[in-house]
């Protein structure tokens, strides 16, 4: 094989699209094959190694595609029903999400390997298989060209992450699985699909188009209702009160949480909200009709309420879960403000939150693997034993809070700009109060880790395994890099 | 009142239909249900045949004489088919009743329901 023929940067966009969709499936198949064909001690290494390699290659493809930014490239795989096809179209937002998912996947896979081995979890083959399928579904969502394609992959994502959530097989895991599936499927089948078909009937098409496809097709009075179907139908965006599945899913192993919160599931949710707002409704149409005003308030409520709940949680993962609910509210808010600036801030937030949150979850998992602790009360003084982990956590936390020089600062700044644009001063206040709350519940953890005295004083450094440590350092650095490289990301959004 | 005299055949059909239908629904004994079903079906036969009657017409069998007015033969043919169906249904129905009697010892609806409710927990056979 000619190595240069495999260079993603030299490939056509169409090829890259197919690769981005197909590579995760290839990895999934590889997991199954390795499980059946290879035996012995090397089985796990081959199975996992091919996953990481394919993941790295996928990341390269995603970077190549994002760098090229071939807006408008379109491939149709098949015609579903007359008038609707399974097709993929490239535009900046989708490419950004694909980039985030593609780059974080290999990192997450590496971490998963370390975690599963470190915590000696069972059924690793099944886990890795569904992990890869979930990434495939996320790619499908990112690159989708019409609402139907997006919906198809959205559902695939729900069902492929279910086995991950219920992985432990305990009664708690089963109950969490029921809540997860129940909320996500019910919302997508009852509300989202309703919205999709309504758009189909109103606009005659489901293809995404710049400026939206609903302008003139629907009475301005009904826009809030239709938007509501989407806002609550996209359960993965965890807009309150449909957020319960997220804390429930914390019963899953931490790599799943990392995947759910940063790489795939919630990002797919808010991405879909943004995409629908920009390419189905159209920001101008939303602004004129005022159809998204109510969403500004609901999202603001979600941001603040979730942060308050986070304060009350002592289980680290639960606290991070509610933090995510709050942060997702930012993105929904960005969509609801119906201005290009706010929307680009929201899009950037997808990337910065992904990097920051995944770092936080990696750290939480590292703590569990190294010391079997999950409650903050037990983690006093742990920072001295796991300095690298805590430092990475601090960096991720600062990004979430929105402090320069971390990437999160930019996305928050642009969002605030978008709010000012429309005169939503209340939103400004909400964002600032939220930052304050973030500081409290995230900062508490870091400060207690470094400065509190532990119940059993013992300052020997016992960090997490390397396979866990490297990823969290990488993503922490990524958060810093996002601050400096923000122009690269925002360039395609100018306009 | 005159309609009763001119259309008495249809009233007869209705009466039979309701009698049969009532027996099917209201009677718990399976044999009585079958009898009711038969009466119900017979009323339908009568409906068809009486609709086929043509004024002064005679039975629809060719006599060879010119100028004979015949009743419409088609309903007769249809009813022959329906009678056969009715006979077959009755046969299957009674076969089932015999099997039920052998298996359950009763052909009364309410007794069967009681027996089945008890057996429902243990599964059956």
């Amino acid at each position: 094989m000619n190595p240069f023929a495999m260079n993603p940067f030299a490939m056509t966009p169409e090829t890259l699209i197919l690769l981005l969709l197909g590579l995760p499936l290839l990895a999934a198949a590889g997991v199954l094959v390795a499980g059946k064909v290879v035996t012995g001690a090397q089985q796990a290494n081959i199975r996992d190694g091919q996953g990481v390699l394919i993941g790295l290659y996928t990341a390269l493809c995603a970077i190549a595609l994002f760098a090229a930014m071939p807006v408008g490239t379109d491939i149709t795989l098949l015609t579903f029903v007359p008038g609707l096809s399974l097709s993929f179209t490239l535009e900046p937002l989708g490419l950004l999400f694909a980039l985030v998912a593609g780059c974080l996947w290999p990192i997450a896979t590496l971490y998963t390997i370390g975690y599963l081995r470190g915590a000696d979890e069972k059924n690793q083959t099944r886990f890795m298989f569904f992990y890869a399928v979930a990434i495939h579904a996320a790619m499908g969502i990112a690159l989708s060209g019409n609402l139907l394609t997006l919906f198809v992959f959205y559902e695939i994502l729900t069902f492929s992450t279910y086995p991950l959530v219920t992985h432990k097989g305990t009664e708690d895991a089963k109950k969490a699985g029921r809540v997860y599936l129940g909320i996500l499927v019910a919302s997508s089948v009852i509300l989202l699909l309703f919205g999709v078909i309504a758009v189909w009937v109103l606009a005659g098409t489901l293809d995404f188009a710049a400026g939206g496809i609903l302008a003139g097709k629907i009475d301005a009075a009904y826009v809030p209702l239709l938007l509501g179907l989407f806002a609550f139908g996209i359960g993965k965006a965890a807009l309150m009160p449909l957020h319960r599945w997220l804390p429930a899913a914390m019963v899953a192993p931490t790599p799943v949480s990392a995947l759910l919160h940063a790489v795939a599931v919630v990002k797919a949710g808010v991405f879909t909200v943004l995409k629908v707002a920009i390419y189905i409704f159209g920001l101008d149409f939303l602004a004129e009709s005022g159809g998204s005003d109510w969403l500004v308030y609901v999202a603001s409520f979600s941001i603040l309420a979730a942060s308050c709940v986070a304060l009350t949680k002592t289980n680290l993962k639960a606290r991070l879960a509610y933090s995510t609910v709050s942060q997702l509210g930012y993105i929904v808010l960005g969509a609801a403000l119906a201005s290009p600036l706010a929307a680009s801030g929201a899009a950037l937030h997808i990337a910065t939150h992904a990097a920051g949150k995944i770092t936080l979850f990696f750290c939480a998992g590292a703590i569990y693997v190294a010391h079997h602790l999950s409650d903050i009360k037990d983690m006093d003084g742990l920072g001295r034993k796991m300095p690298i982990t805590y430092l990475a956590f601090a960096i991720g936390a600062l990004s979430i809070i929105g402090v320069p020089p971390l990437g999160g600062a930019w996305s928050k700044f642009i969002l605030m700009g978008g709010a000012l644009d429309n005169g939503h001063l209340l939103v400004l206040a909400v964002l600032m109060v939220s930052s304050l709350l973030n500081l409290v519940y995230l900062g508490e953890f870091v400060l207690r880790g470094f400065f509190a005295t532990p119940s059993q004083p013992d300052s020997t450094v016992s960090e997490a395994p390397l396979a866990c440590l490297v990823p969290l350092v990488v993503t922490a650095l990524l958060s810093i890099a996002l601050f400096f490289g923000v122009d690269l990301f925002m360039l395609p959004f100018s306009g | 009142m005159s309609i009763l005299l001119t259309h008495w055949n249809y009233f007869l059909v209705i009466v039979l239909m309701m009698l049969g239908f009532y027996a099917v629904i209201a009677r718990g004994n399976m044999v009585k249900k079958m009898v009711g079903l038969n009466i119900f079906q017979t009323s339908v036969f009568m409906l068809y045949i009486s609709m086929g009657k043509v004024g002064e017409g005679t039975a629809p069998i060719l006599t060879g004489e010119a100028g004979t007015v015949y009743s419409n033969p088609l309903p007769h043919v249809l009813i022959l088919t329906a009678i056969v169906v009715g006979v077959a249904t009755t046969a299957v129905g009674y076969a089932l009743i015999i099997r039920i009697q052998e298996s359950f010892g009763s052909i009364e609806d309410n007794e069967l329901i009681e027996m089945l409710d008890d057996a429902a927990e243990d599964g059956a056979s």
Partner: protein
Amino acid sequence: MMQHLPVLQVLAPLMAAPFAALLRWRHMAWGLAMLATGAAFVISLALFVQVSANGTIVYDLGGWPAPIGIVYVIDAANAVVLPVISFIGFIATLAARHLVAREIDRRDHALFYSAWLLTLAGMLGQVTTGDAFNIFVFLEISSLSAYALVAMGAGRDRRALPAAFNYLILGTVGATFYVIGIGLLYMQTGTLNLADLANRVPQLGATLPAYTALAFIALGLFLKMALFPLHFWLVPAYGYAPSAVSALMAATATKVSVYVLIRLIFGVFGADFPSLADGFGMLVITLGLVGAFVGTLAAIVETDLKKLFAQSSIAQLGYMAIGIGLVTASGLTAAIIHLFNHALMKGALFLAIGVIAAQAGRATMGTIQGAGRQIPMTMTAVLFGGLALIGVPLTAGFISKLYLIRALIEVDFWLIAALVFISSALALAYIWKIVEAAWLSERPEGAPVLTESIGTWLPAWLLVLATLGFGIFAAPLVEAAMAAADIFFGGRP
């Protein structure tokens, strides 16, 4: 040969039936059944191709032209129904071999296949014929054999006998109502030929006899298609019947009655018949909607899997009824699509749980605990069938839902659309109970070990693949259904 295809479609299983009864060796009876059903399937495909290319085929039986003789008419509407019925018949026969071997006494196998072929012949006849009374004849042929087939489940569970008897009583009442209706139509128009009736009945207008005929015909067919509240016979009959019979009947019998309803209401009375849309249509939509909820909710609390899926069928038939009750081309398209897809989905589900029922005596939540590990292929078939019922994309069930909701939204029936969504989301509850029992639970000690072989899971998987195939490559089916709806609605929207 080619011009006789319409009648051969029915003759193949019909003539094979008595021979199957006479055969001594039961394996030959099955072989004959395979040949007959296979031939029926091939013929149905050939007919579909012919109709797509050349338009409606009219076949005069015995050379007697309409309206004197009985004619068989194959147009776009039944050309799409025939393949699915015969395909299910073929696949179910394939599965019947191992299912029947375990569930029915050896001495009765030859008779079983004879009745089996008669049922199928009756169903194909109902779909093929263009004469209203002929429909009744085939309806009764199919029903009588079905009563006998259901009763054959008595070897395993004696409750099959009262179930079969109730089925007989209610089925005969339904068929008799149909005959009364046809008789009333004959009285008013003088013809039994469907095409001829289609010309004359609309001219009757909004008269009491016409409405009475409509009511009797509809009532009889509602009973046969198990529309709420005339659905009580279905659950015990399919629940206690032998597994192969449940599979065949659940997938085909009620669908054929839906087809006959469509043919009579839209083909004979016509969509423009006065008060059809408001009176009759709204009644059917309401009953269908209630049936959808009743069926789904009953399925959620049901533990016997066959009865559970029978309850689910009532819900799905409710959706078809809603599509019909809309009295629009879109609604009818949706109903036909769902008729087709549901046959495939339910066939797959019943064949899969039949594997369990045949081995463990009954397929219940209890007997499938941990089955996911012992019989993965079979349980995965159940999973996919279940996902199709919920309406997950990439399955045929999604396509059905898409078009049904679209038809509802087009006439601004937003509330009904929302209710349809809610009831289909509720299906998640009973599907997930099954998933959890199969994969997330341990098999209890002492439970019979379940085994599967390619012979047992293949039939179900063929139908699962068809479900997925029509879920992904749905365009041909949708177009065929639209062509079918066009037959009844002309050029109207």
